[in-house]
Each structure stands twice: as C-alpha cells, then as structure tokens.
C-alpha cells in the first residue's frame, strides 16, 4: 500500500503535525462568559516517518495525551494542521487556498472513517479500555464490522489469529476483560489497535500502569509487531527509560510546547534543553560510577491557563539565565528568583516569620528589638535557603533593601525593588529553535540569546 521503511529524515513523513493547538475555554458564571483559555497544547510541530518510532515525553499534565487525542480527533484541535500521508495519499500538493488535502483536521465524516483504519491508538489504563460487558474478541471484531466486514465467521477467524499473534490464545476470544490481567489486556489492546492494519499506532503510556516485568514483555511485543508490520509509532510516556528502549527519535514536551526534538541517542547523550536534562537525571543508570547529578525541579508545573511569559520553563529551570551585571552561583540565583516570585505574588507571611524569629531570639540577652530585627532578616534568608550574604553586590543590595522593606511592612516596595533588579531574559524573551545538527533541535535561550521578545500586544492572549 504505502512505501515503508526508509531511514528517518528522508522522504515524505507519514504524519506531519504543524502548530497543533488545543485550547479549552474557561467559562464562568450564568452566561458562560469566557474568562480565559487553558492552553493544553499550544503549537507543537513534529513529523513521524514511515516505520519510525517517535517518543513524546514530558511530565503528567504537560499535554501529551491531549496532543495525541487531537491528532486522531478524539478531541477537535483548535488550530494547526495534522497532515497524514499514509494509505496512498502521498505526494499531495497544497490547495490554492493554502489548505492541505491530507489535513486530518479538515477531514469530513467519510474521510475520517477511512483515516480510522490508518491510525489507531492504545490507551493508558488497561482496566477501563475495554467494555466490561463485551468479550474481548467481539471488542476487537467490532472494528472490522464497523468498517464493513459483515461476515461474522471471517471476523472471528481474523481476530483469533491476531490474538495468537499478540501472545494470547484463540480461545480467549470469548473471555471478558475482567478475566484478564493488566498485561494481557494491553496485549488485547494492541490487537485492537492492529486489527484494521493501520500505518500508525499512537500508544498513550501503554505500559505505565503495568509492573516492571510485564512492561518489558509488552514492550518487546510492541517492538516485534512494529518490525513485522512496518508500523510507525507515536509513543507517549513520562518514563525516559522506556523511551530510550523503544524510540528512534524523541520530542520533549513542557506545558503544551515542545522544547527539544532529536534522535534518541543524541538526546540521551547530550541533552540540550535544561528540562530534558532534568528528566534524564531521574533515569537510573546501570553504571554506579557514572556521575550524573540528580536535578530536582523546583516548584510545581504552572497552570496551563496562565503559562509563564517568555520561556515557559523559566519558573523551574535550574539553568535560568542571569542578567548582565549579576553573577551568582546558579543554585543561589534560582532560589533568589523563587524568592522574588513569592514576594511579588504576596505569598510571604512576614508576621509568622517574625514570630518564629522572635521565639528563637528570646533566650538571648541584650536589646530585644535590635536583636530581633537582625535575626528576622537572617531568618528570612535561612527560610528561603539564601546565603546570609550574596556574592554579587548588586543583588545583595537589592535583596537586603527588599527584606528591610518587607519587615517595615511595605510589601509593594519590596516587590517592586526585586522585580526591577532580579530579572532574567528567560521571562521576557521567547526562545527560538536552535539546530544542533542531525535533526536535533532545542528551544532554549542559552543557545541563541537573541530569541524573540514577547509580543506586547495583549490581543494574542485570546488567540
């Protein structure tokens, strides 16, 4: 049917995702007034070539699953294109109005139904991915009958044969989902995904609900079937070790955007984006002598309804850039930014800090007021893991003054002072893509400091 195989990066991609967006409106009140937008997926682009496995990796909640669901139109994407060139659709030219004839997001009912035969999906939770009132055999055979195979005996024959191929037995046809273990259910899920002989299978965390040993079995089955039938695979996972094992290329996703794309060996050997670095640092290495610093990301994932300006990762990045004129140790700089963020958002409770400092200082003799004031300032620094004295004079002056203002109760002045001095280009500039060769790209300001300043136009917020 379609030309398969061929090295990655050559020829026409099977699936090409262009600036895919899925925004959910946030509605409020009686009249469902639109008050904001959750940018679950905010403009991601990647390609999958025939026979290739692309890994999509990121923390939970970063929009991986939404991206997958938008690609297959389980959720309707709100922007961008998904161009599918499989099943004899290859080499199509764009229409005169700029739309693409193979754009899945514009498929009508009939085209979409045909597309369902080409792209199938495996879901994360084996427990809920089968109708509890249907035998697994009929659940798999249902796809055949939906697409017009009316001959029941033939359906059964095909499904029984396929069940054997995924490591189950033909007699399992008549069993119910609750009679299978999680790993077996994922095998059936694989059979269901394969039964229409698709070109591309999207696996949404297919093994994350399974035990380690079962994971390995299911992964080898996926690899084996992929090799036999020349499938392309979009493999979604939060587990870097699984990605390393099964993928050819990786796309790293953070808060609705891609931050790094590249061949799996290169990304694992030389991660370019700090976020990728952090994800990789959590993978256990087989070599106990290998020195790999474990990076702990500070803070929680920001709300996709209100993503940070500039580089979206700057609120948690351990390599966040220091402005000209400030030179601090990187961890201290990170903590200083976190402290600024707390002061600006008004989340610091000076009174309780003062109380605690007072109880600490009480046993000491001397002037209680003066002693107390000094220890509260120090106390605050300790609380936020900041050194008693910053090595950089500019930063030190700003921090000292700001703490003083905080103690005087002038939170606004403190916030203003910190916000004017403790700044990073990461929050004002949207990073562009940097090509590291061999299809390895990353989007971090450290590689290309010019970037693109954030648009001052607030209208873009409602895009």
């Amino acid at each position: 049917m379609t030309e398969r195989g061929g090295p990655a990066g050559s020829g026409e991609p099977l699936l090409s995702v262009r600036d895919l967006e899925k925004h959910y409106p946030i509605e409020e009140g009686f009249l469902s007034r639109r008050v904001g937008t959750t940018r679950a997926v905010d403009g991601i682009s990647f390609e999958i070539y025939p026979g290739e496995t692309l890994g999509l990796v990121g923390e939970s909640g970063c929009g991986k699953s939404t991206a997958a669901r938008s690609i297959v139109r389980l959720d309707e994407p709100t922007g961008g294109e998904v161009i599918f060139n499989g099943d004899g659709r290859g080499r199509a030219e764009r229409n005169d109005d700029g739309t693409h004839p193979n754009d899945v997001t514009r498929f009508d009912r009939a085209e979409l139904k045909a597309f369902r035969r080409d792209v199938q999906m495996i879901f994360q939770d084996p427990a809920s991915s089968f109708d509890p009132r249907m035998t697994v055999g009929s659940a798999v055979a249902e796809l055949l009958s939906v697409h017009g195979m009316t001959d029941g005996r033939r359906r059964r024959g095909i499904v029984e044969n396929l069940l054997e191929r995924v490591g189950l037995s033909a007699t399992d046809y008549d069993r119910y989902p609750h009679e299978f273990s999680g790993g077996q259910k994922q095998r059936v899920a694989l059979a269901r995904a394969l039964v229409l002989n698709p070109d591309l299978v999207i696996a949404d965390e297919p093994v994350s609900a399974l035990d380690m040993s079962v994971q390995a079995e299911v992964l080898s089955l996926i690899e084996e079937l992929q090799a036999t039938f020349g499938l392309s695979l979009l493999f979604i996972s939060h587990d870097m070790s699984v990605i390393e094992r099964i993928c050819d290329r990786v796309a790293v996703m953070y808060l609705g955007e891609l931050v790094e794309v590249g061949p799996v060996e290169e990304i694992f050997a030389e991660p370019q984006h700090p976020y990728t670095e952090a994800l990789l640092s959590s993978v256990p290495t087989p070599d106990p002598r290998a020195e790999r610093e474990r990076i702990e990301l500070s803070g929680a994932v920001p709300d996709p309804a209100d993503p940070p300006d500039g580089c979206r990762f700057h609120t948690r990045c351990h390599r966040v850039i220091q402005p000209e004129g400030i030179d601090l140790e990187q961890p201290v700089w990170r903590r200083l930014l976190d402290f600024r963020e707390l002061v600006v958002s008004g989340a610091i409770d000076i009174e309780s800090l003062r109380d605690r400092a007072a109880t600490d200082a009480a046993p000491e003799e001397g002037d209680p007021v003066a002693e107390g004031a000094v220890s509260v300032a120090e106390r605050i620094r300790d609380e936020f893991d900041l050194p008693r004295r910053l090595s950089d004079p500019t930063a030190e002056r700003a921090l000292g003054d700001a703490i003083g203002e905080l103690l005087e109760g002038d939170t606004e002045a403190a916030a203003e002072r910190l916000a004017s001095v403790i700044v990073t280009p990461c929050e004002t500039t949207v990073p562009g893509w940097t090509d590291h060769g061999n299809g390895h790209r990353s989007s971090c300001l450290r590689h290309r400091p010019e970037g693109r300043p954030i648009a001052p136009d607030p209208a873009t917020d409602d895009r």
Partner: protein
Amino acid sequence: MATEKTDKPDRFDEVDWTELAGTRRRDLSVNSLGMIATTLPLVALFAYDWRFVGEREATFGAVGLEADWSGIDFMFVFTLLLFCFYLVLPLYQHPRMTRYYWREFKRNRPAVVSLGWLLVVFVGGLLGPLVLNAPQQDVLAGHQPPVFLSIDAANVAQCLGEVRGGRCYGTWQYPLGTTRGGKGVFRTIVYGMTISTQIAFITTTIVAAIGVSVGTASAYAGGWVDELLMRFVDIVLSFPTLLMFLLILYIYGAGLGMFIFVFSLFAWGGTARYVRSKSLSVAEAAYIDASRLSGAGTYRVVRRHVVPNTASSIITQLTLLVPGFLLAEAQLAFLELGDSELPSWGQLISAGRSDLAFAPWIVLAPGIVLFLTILAFNFLGDALLDALDPQTEAETER
C-alpha cells in the same frame, strides 16, 4: 458468498479494505430478527381485532376460542417478546457472562428465594388463566373457609365441606376459601398474578423506554437540549400523578390500562436522571474513546456501549420501581377507585375488609401474596445491583 469465504484470507493484514468499506449493508442480529418476526403477527392480530372483531366478540372467536384480548393484553405480549429477545436470549447467547452473573447472584440467598417466588407469580400469571377457569360468582358457596380451617356454620349459607360440632370445614374445591360472593380466593389470586405481571412488565417497559431515551439523549446532546430535557424531568417528577389519575377517573372512568398508562408516564423522571448521570460517567471511560476511534458513529457507540453499561443500574432501579406500582394499584382498589370487576389482589382485599371479623382469609391471603411479592422485588433489586456490575468486582481485585 460461500465460495468467497474459502479464498479470503483470515489475517488482518491481508484484508482489502477498499473493497469492504463500500458495503453499507447493515446486518440485523438474531435478536432483532426474532423480535421483528414475532411482532409483525402480533401487530396484524391487533389490527384484525381492532378492525374486524366486534366490540363484544372474542378476539379468537373465529377459531373457536373464547379468549378476548384487550389492548393491555397486546401490550403485555409485546413486552414479553421484548423481554425474551433482549434479556433472556442474550443471557443464553453469552453463557460465560450469564454464569458469572449467576455465581454473583447466588451469593445472596434471600434474593434467590425472591427470584423463585417471582417466577411462581410470573408463571402463575401467565399460565394460570389458561389452566383455571375464571372465578365465578356463586352466592350459595359464599364464605367457605380454606382447607384445614373452619368457620362457625352460622356464617355460611351452605357448607360445602364437613360440618362438625357446629363448624364448617374447608374443602379442596376452594383451597383458600371463598369471598362473600362465593368466588374462590385461590383462583382470584392466580388471576391477580396476571394483573400484577402485566403491571410489572408494561410499566417497566414504558419507564425504561422513555427514561433511557431521554437520559442518554440528554447526556449525549448536552447544551440546551440537556437543560430542556432535565427541566422537563423536574416537571414530571413533581407532577401529582395520583390527582391526575383521579381526575381522569372521575371524568372518563379508568381501567387497568389507564392506570398503567398514567402512572408509568409520570414515573420515568428518576430513571431518566439516573441514566443521564450514569451515561456521563460511562462516556468518560477509555473504551468509549476506543469505540469512537474505531470509526463507529455516535448511535452505535451509545447503543452498543453506553446503554449496556448503564443497564445494570437501570435494571436495579426498575426492579425497585415495580413494587410502587403494585402497591398503588392495591391502594386504589382498596379505596374502590378503579375497575371493581378486575380480579386484582387489591380488589380482593377490598372485597374482604367488611368480613374481616369472621373470614380473615379473604384479606390475609392476597395481602400476604402482595407483601411477599413486594418484598421479593426489593431483595431482587439489591442483589442485582451487586451481581450485574463486573466492573466493581474487577476494580476491587486490581
């Protein structure tokens, strides 16, 4: 077809979908075929009865039978057919699931006994009228006591059994005694089973049909359709059904048919609401996504996955609804608001209340039967809730 089958490969990767995808023939299941094949003659018979058979003639008069079917009887047969083809036959078609349900159900002993009792009522109601003649008025045989019991001979006009020491003993001719008018209590109870079975089946069907349609439509359409339907449900739920029924009764008069019609037409509100919330939660499950991803249309997804998975709770809810109807019928009959010719349990209780002092069996026998039936429905409902949900089981095992 037969030749094609042999040379078509049975491997998923060798199917020529471009050839198959063109076929738009929809294959009907055995169940639907059976349903259609049996419903058509029923409809024909109904049309014949309505058009060609006179008001006072028996439906089957032309073939020499005396049976006369009313609208209720046609409706009853129709619901029985539905019951056979969409409840009993599927249980037979899926023996594995049936065995599983039965194993789960069996754990609840009172429920098994209840099911036995309801089967007795069902079979009695279905076959009783065919085997036994309708209870006849016979003033001379009034107030006969049940077998093994006796009554002061002064209270009976003519004792059919033995008279010993001034007391009249019961006979096997009337195992549960007779009423003042001399109708056999046992036969009236058996005929009452028919009425109760009819009430149970027809109301259940009407409530389920409307409730499931409105509930799933509401859940799936969403938006203003959902809003509109649910507000309509609120109206239905707050409607004073009894007053409505009394009004109709006083203006037009009302029989069993009107009772069933009015009461079931205002009882589906709870079911609809229940089905809606259940459908919404089922629609979240990954297998619904998988089914949509298979290319199936919304109707197929709802019909094949959403409705069957809400079924367990619907069945339970309906089982708990039926006792309400039976009680309502009995209460109305007791208050003499209804067709006094109807051989229902309520009518029998009502007929015996003036003779309670010396002939308590006239009230007690149907009263106990009614009580047991209602109790049985309640036990059954609880047990079905536990038995019909393989998912809860699977999740606890996980």
